[in-house]
Structures are given as C-alpha cells and as structure tokens.
C-alpha cells in the first residue's frame, strides 16, 4: 500500500537548514497496524504528514496505492486524500462551530455523497462509536474521550483504506486512551491499514509493527510480539 524510497524532507530558513527526514525507506502492506515512535523532533509527524499527503517530500520517492505521488500537486493530493485516508489527531481537531453530526458528515460532503446517504452513514458510524446520543451536541459540550471518539468516527466515515493517527491518546486519560486504542485495533481487524505516531510504548504495542525514528532516520523496525487484545 505504501512504499517510500529514500524520502527526504528539508526545512530551510534564511540561515538554517534542518533535515527532518533523511532517506527514509519504509513499506507498509494493506491491513498492517504500524506504530511510529521516537523522541520529539525526530521527524515522526513530518513522516506522517507526508504519508498522509498533507505535505510533499523534498526528495525521494513515495508510492501510495502503486502511484508515485511525491510530485503531486495539492489538488491531486487532496483528491487521493479525501477518498482514501482518514486522520485522527492528538488534539481532536473538531470544528467548534459544527455539531457532532456535522463534523462527522464533513468528509462525505467533500466527496460529494448524497444528503440521504450521508445521514445514514454518519448515523451508522456514530452508533458504532456509541455517540448517537450526542449527535446534536457541539464539541465543547463533550469530554476529551468523547471528542476523540467523534474524531475517530469522522476518520472512518468514508471507509478509508488508510487511517493515520497522530498521538491519538496524547490528550486523554488512560481509560479513554485505552478505549480509543481498542477502537483502532477493532478497525484494523476489520481490514483498515493504520499508521500511528506515538510516544507511548504501551500504545505502540497495540499495533503489529513498530518503526523507530531518530534524527530523521529509521533506526529500527520490529514486530510486536503479542497482541494486547
């Protein structure tokens, strides 16, 4: 599903040049649940942004669904992204002005799903996340755990082939964090490919492979010995 070859990302300011990713080559197969770990500033989020087609690499190759996408324009990336990728963020990133239902509905609007179909699919996924009773609430009226459940619902409502999660439990207490991780494992079991950036070894071990980065380079790749669930 994903293959990168010597992926580079260099940030330049007037005086300093910072290499965020240095010849990163990884391969992720459909159905995998890969955790990316490493200290702050090692390039985890940069890699996730590039894999999620939010950002372009400075060099190297990136094959997504067998297409070389590293030189894609914003418009092309946006097309691929909205049809194939779901995002979950540490800070939930729900839109405060929209209700739970409307937040989850948003990706379907951008993929031009009909109104009746949208309603059905949003209700289904909210039901699955156990958030139906909150469908007309605004994000500020929800707890952190509930907000992240809505964010997960939004990430999966389009049935994406790939789910990217950036520190999804970072802002949650352990009970809510566990809840989110179980949901991710469940989605993975249903066939979704998941890439998750995390600081937490505990969370990383919910996946089946861990990639460790340091200073923009892959230092180790290891399989997780046993499933926690």
């Amino acid at each position, binding site marked *: 599903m994903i293959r990168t070859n010597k992926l580079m990302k260099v940030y330049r300011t007037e005086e300093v040049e910072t290499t965020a990713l240095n010849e990163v080559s990884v391969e992720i197969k459909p159905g995998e649940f890969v955790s990316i770990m490493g200290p702050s500033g090692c390039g985890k*989020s940069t890699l996730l*942004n590039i894999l*999620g087609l*939010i*950002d372009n690499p400075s060099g190297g190759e990136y094959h997504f669904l067998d297409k070389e996408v590293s030189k894609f324009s*914003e*418009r092309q990336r*946006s097309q691929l*992204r*909205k*049809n194939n990728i779901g*995002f979950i*963020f540490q800070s939930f*990133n*729900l*839109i*405060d*002005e*929209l209700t739970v239902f*409307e937040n989850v*509905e*948003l*990706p379907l*609007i*951008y*993929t*031009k799903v009909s109104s009746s179909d949208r309603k059905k699919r949003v209700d289904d996924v909210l039901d699955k996340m156990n958030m139906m009773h909150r469908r007309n609430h605004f994000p500020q009226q929800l707890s952190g755990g509930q907000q992240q459940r809505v964010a997960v619902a*939004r990430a999966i409502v389009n049935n994406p082939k790939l789910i990217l999660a950036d520190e999804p439990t970072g802002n949650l207490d352990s009970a809510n964090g566990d809840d989110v991780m179980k949901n991710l494992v469940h989605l993975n079991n249903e066939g979704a490919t998941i890439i998750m950036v995390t600081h937490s070894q505990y969370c990383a071990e919910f996946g089946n492979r861990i990639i460790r980065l340091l200073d923009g380079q892959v230092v180790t790749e290891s399989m997780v010995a046993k499933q926690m669930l």
Partner: protein
Amino acid sequence: MWKSQIRLALRSLWKNKLNTTIKLAGFIVGITSCLMIMLFIQQELNYDAFHEKGDRLVRVVMEYGMAGESGIVNVTGNKVAPAFKEDFAEVANACRVIEYNQVVKFREQIFEEPHFYYADSTFFELFTFPLLQGEPGEVLRAPDQVVLAERMAKKYFGDEDPIGKVLRVGTDNNYTVSGIMQDPPAASQLKPDFIGSFVSLRDARAERLTWWNANYATYLLLHNAESRPGLEAKIPEYMRRHANETGSEGENYLSYRLEPLLEVHLHSPVPGNFEPNGDIRYIYILSAIGLFILLISTSSYINLATAVSTERAKEIGVQKVLGASRGQLFWQHLAESMVLTGLALTASIALVPLFLPFFNSLFDRQLSANVLLGPAFMGGLFLFGLSTSLLAGAYPATVLSGFEPFRVLKGAYKHSSSGNLLRKSLIVFQFAISVILVISTLVLQGQMQYIQEKKLGYDKSHVLALRTDQQVVEKLDALRSEWVGQKGIQSLSLVYETPVHIKGGYDISRSVNGEHAKMVTALPADEHFLETVNIGLAAGSGISKADVEIAARLGSGSDTTSTLSILINESQARAFGWTPEEALRQFVSFNGRRVQIKGVMKDFHFASLHEPIGNLVVFPTSWGNTLMAKLDGRDIPGALQYMESKWTQLAPHRPFTYHFLDEEFGRMYASEWQAAKLATTFSWLAILLACLALFGVSSYSIVQRSREVSIRKVLGASMTSIISLLSGSFLKLVVWSFLAAMPVGWYLMHQWLQNFTYHIEIQWWMFTLAALLALGAAFLSVSVQSIRTALVNPAEELKGE
C-alpha cells in the same frame, strides 16, 4: 455544499460576536451612506428625464456683446420663440416661460406665491406635466387663464372643484382656473405652482415683440434631436440678417446657443432659470466620497477577517485534511462576507427611509426611498451587494483558503504575523482618508465662519426685506410714519433689490457723450438706503429727498432740464482715474443720460465673496419692489408683530411676507454650506469606521501578545510601559496616515479656497487639531484592550507553558 458552507459561515459569525458586530456595523454605515449618495446621484442624473419629448427639447441661451462687454444669459427676448418657430423648419414648436412672484387671493386667503409662471399655450405639448383636469391645448390658450399644481388647488380650494373659479392675481387681475396639473417631480428644473396664460401679459402683444429685454426662458421642441447642432450653426448668420432689428453693429452682436434640456441641470455653464443648476463636479466628488466610505468599510472587513485568521486556522487546516479543496474553502469564506453584506444591505434598506428626512433637510432635497424598491434599483443593489462582498471577502478568502494544513496543524499560524503589512496599510489608508476629511471640514468651516464674520462694508444685521408693489409704494409715507421710531424700527428704505446681491446691469461712461461706455452694476434706491444698511461715504453726500423727487419728475417726463445725481463707489472712481474727492460734481453718462456724481460710497461687497468688489452706481428712485427696514434688534418679535398689524391696515392686498438680509446672505452660499455639512458628516463617519476597525484589529493583535506582556511583567515592566508598548504600535500608524494625508488635504483645500476672491489661509492649527483628533480617537480605540491585556495575571497566562 452551499447549505453547509452558509451554515458554517453563520455559526462562525455568531461565535465571533464582537468581530461580527464590528464588521456588520461597518458595512451598515458604509452601505447606508452609499445608498443615500446613490439616491442623490440617481436623482441628479435623471433630472428632467420624465419629459416624454425630453431628448428633443432644447433651452435657448442668449450670447451678446455690448458696450465692449460680452455675456451669455439664460433668458432671451420674447421674439425668439415665435421667430424661430416661424423661420426654422427644424423647430416643431416653441414655448416662452417666465416666473413671477405674485400675490394670489381667493376669498379671504391671500398668499405671496414665488413660483407663479406664465407660459405659452404650447407648454403642455413640450413638457410632460400631466393634467388632472383640463385639455393640454386649451388650458393656456385664452387670456387670464391659470393652471394650478395639485398642491395649490388643495391649498386654495380644499375639496372644492377649482375649475372655473376666479383667483385675484397681483392687484387687479382676475384669472380663471382652467386646469389642474400633477405636482412637478423633484427632479425638474421647472417647478411651477401656477401657470398663467402667456397671452395675459402685455409683452405677448405682437407690437411688443423684441430681441432684447431678455426676461424669458425660451424652449424649443425639435422634430428631430439630431438636428440641434445644424440648427445652432445657422443661428449666427440668421441673426446677422436681422442686425437692423437687433441694433447689432460694430462690436455689438446678438446670437443664441441651443442646449439640450437634459444636459442643462448638470452640464450647462449658464445658470438655471428657475432654480440653481446642479454640478457634474459635485456628482464626481460625491461618487468619490461614496467609494471611499465603501472602501473604508470593506477594508475594515478585510482587516478584521484576516485578523482572526489565527483563530480560523485550525478549522481550515482540518477541513483541508478532510479533503476540502481550496476552491471550496474560498467560497465558504466568501459566503461569510456575502451573508454579512446581505444582512447589512437589508438593514441599510430599512435604515435609509429613517435617515432620508435628515439627509433631505441637510442637503435641501426631496429624495424618496421608494426608488430603492424599483426593479432596476433592486437589480443594481443585488450587483452592488455582490461586488461589495467580493471586494471585502475575496482577499480574506484567498488568504484563509491558502493555509497549508500541515503548518496549521503544527500551530504555525498561532502567532502569525502574515498579513500584518496589509492590515497596517489598510489602517493607514482609513485614517488618512479620515484626516483628509477632518482637514477639509476645518477649512470649510473656517471659510464659512470668515464669510459670516467678514466686514462687508454694510450692516446686514436686523435688516428685514419685504417685497412690495406700486400700491404699497403709494402709501410709503404713511407706512414710514407708522413704523419708524416705533418698537425699535430705526429706518425704512425703498430699493429695487437688497445690497446682498445687486444684479442690475447698466452702462456708464466718463465722457458725457457716452463714448466707450462700460457695463456697470447699479441699484435704484431712495434717500434712506445708506442709513438703513449703514454704508459709509468716502466723499460727498448721499441721496436726498429732492434727488428722489427730481428722479420721479425726470422719469415721468414732467422735467427735462434737471440733472440726475448719482452715487458711485470707490472702485468706480478709481476706474475713472479719480480720487473720491476728484469724482465729486463730475458729469458722466449713465445709461445714455448725463448725470452728476454727488457722492462716493466706500466699497462694500454687493455680490458673493467669490467675486472681487466691482464698480457700482446707486441712483435715486421713487419706485422699487423691495422695502428694507432696520430694527434695533432688542425686541424683534414685538417689532414684527407691530409691523404686521400696521401693514395689514395699510396694505391689506398683500401678505406681510419678509426675510432677513442675513438669511438671504446665507442662501448665497448654500452650496458651500452643503459642502461643509457633507464634509462634517462624512468625516465623523470615516473616523467612526476607522476607529471601529482599529478597535477590532487591535483587540486581536493585542490578545496575541498577552504571553509577551506576561513575560515583560514578570521581568518588571510597569503598567504604563506596557500600555504605551501596546498602543504605541497602532498610534505610529496613525502618525503615518497623518503624514500621508497632510499634503493631500492641504492641496485639495488650497484649490477649493481659490474659488473665493476673499478667503482664509490654511492654518497650522487645523493640521494639529486633525492630528490630535485622529490620535485621540485611535488611542481610545486601542486603549481598552491594551489596559485589559496589561492587567492580565502573568501566572495565569504562563501556566500553559
């Protein structure tokens, strides 16, 4: 898609209530002002357009050269209309119109009517003033017929049918009401209240037809609008053929120009016949003001919309990650400005009728808000709203939709300085416009005050003027003995017109033979004129009762040997090359008559201060149509009441209708007063809008600096230093705007002052005051948020670090 975009737009407008309120208020003020200006311009541009044959109507103006002077006037002799209709195939019809001030009486009601017209029977064929009663071709055909405007029919007859009723007009004419016409629209040069049949006038008789005695507005209806230039080209030659009738020889000449009626109001250099013309330059200035106000309110919107970009960044980033395209986000943000413009437009349409009476009284107009609801204007308003929302919304929408999601989600826009330069430039622009308007206001008001207080060389205070007629003049001695010395009435004088604006045109020559005569302004007046308006003498003495009696005898032909004595002013003496003393007892030729100079008056301003003091003659008369009474001013209501009671006894045929010279003087500067009021109104509006925007923008940018403020406070900064730090950056912008505005304001007002021969100089304090006003207003706008931020508890603010 649109539904969700508008929903999101409405919710974010609701969420940022302060921001939304300021943007909305800015739009409402801007759009309401623009709509009123548009109504004004719409009326001006459509002046006289209601005449169905308007494109074929022309006004005839007369060009002449006489006694070495040339001129162009809006009136002609009474012969032009019949002669042109007879001799030029291009002319389908012609009409002469003249306006009189008449006293009209019906039963016990008696009023002085300033808009009593006389017109040829063709009037209703040329002009579209629909008749409610009467036949267009018949109502002005016979002598002593009169057509009433609807409002006059109501005024005199109430619910009675006026047709066939008889009105007493002047002292001894009885006119029969032959028709009722709709009241003329506001956008009409001709605004008759009454139209008497032209054939009622003595001058309508064939034997009295003349090319000279230019008193009549003459209008032609052409068969074909395109024939006007060709016809106009034929006139000089035609007039040369009639040189023996016009007396044109040597450098004297007489000819005519034809002005399309629809262009007279805004484009003619020749004054209007029945009301002052408009001026296309005012339309340009007003359009510019409207545009500036709109630009100020749209730049407020741009400023506020981009100022909150940091708050909107997350929302935009998330939407992009979820697949929103730049185009979709662009439209979503544009939807916000469209929603706001729509709301503001609706509010403005509701507000315009509320403010219109104020606007109408300020600018002496009769604008109606109903025009706004017409389909054409509605379509225009829709386009106006759309372009306003595009103007305001396109830039913020472009900026906001261009955010890169990965940077947003990294928090890169949290303390963004992007767009700062633009926001600062917009603030400078807004304040610069405000400062220019404030400078203009100060100069305009300074000049108007100067005009009010300028020593004119005569005393116009507490002098009232009444129009009069022969019957009153005959009882003048009786009136004088009843009035003068009573209730503070100091003197009474009979003149042809008041000294505020003397227009009478005569000719004068230093040679008693009348050679090399020059035009001169002259005023017929009685022996009380100089004392009534307190005009001083540089040499000699004033007109005496004996002079007035000689003038009367000379006028009636009963005396052919006496010499008329006249007064001249210092300018006229200088023009003859004499000192005032040398001028005394000199014989000169005045209007072809040998006269002797009896006195030299000190120069006084007998025209507007736009013009230098010209040459003037005052000569004795026993007739006149204006009475001037000087009051001591201690009990004006008492004096007026007393005067009216005596007037009613002595002149019951004429209502006691008067005005004060001060009012007449003020009317001469009506357009300047309007400009001053306009500048004042719009300077306040511009400052209000600029301050609103500054308040909004500074609120956001100061809040962004609260972390910096906390750190400074921890390090020991005082409240004052923090407030001056936060406010200072904005006040600096106001200083920049002042520097930009100063030369522009100076240049514009310097140009305007050149229109006056007598004017103030632009003073440094005007700039200082404008700068202080702008700085003060700006400081008030930013200080609230500065103080609030300076009071923040650093422990709270830095907790999240």
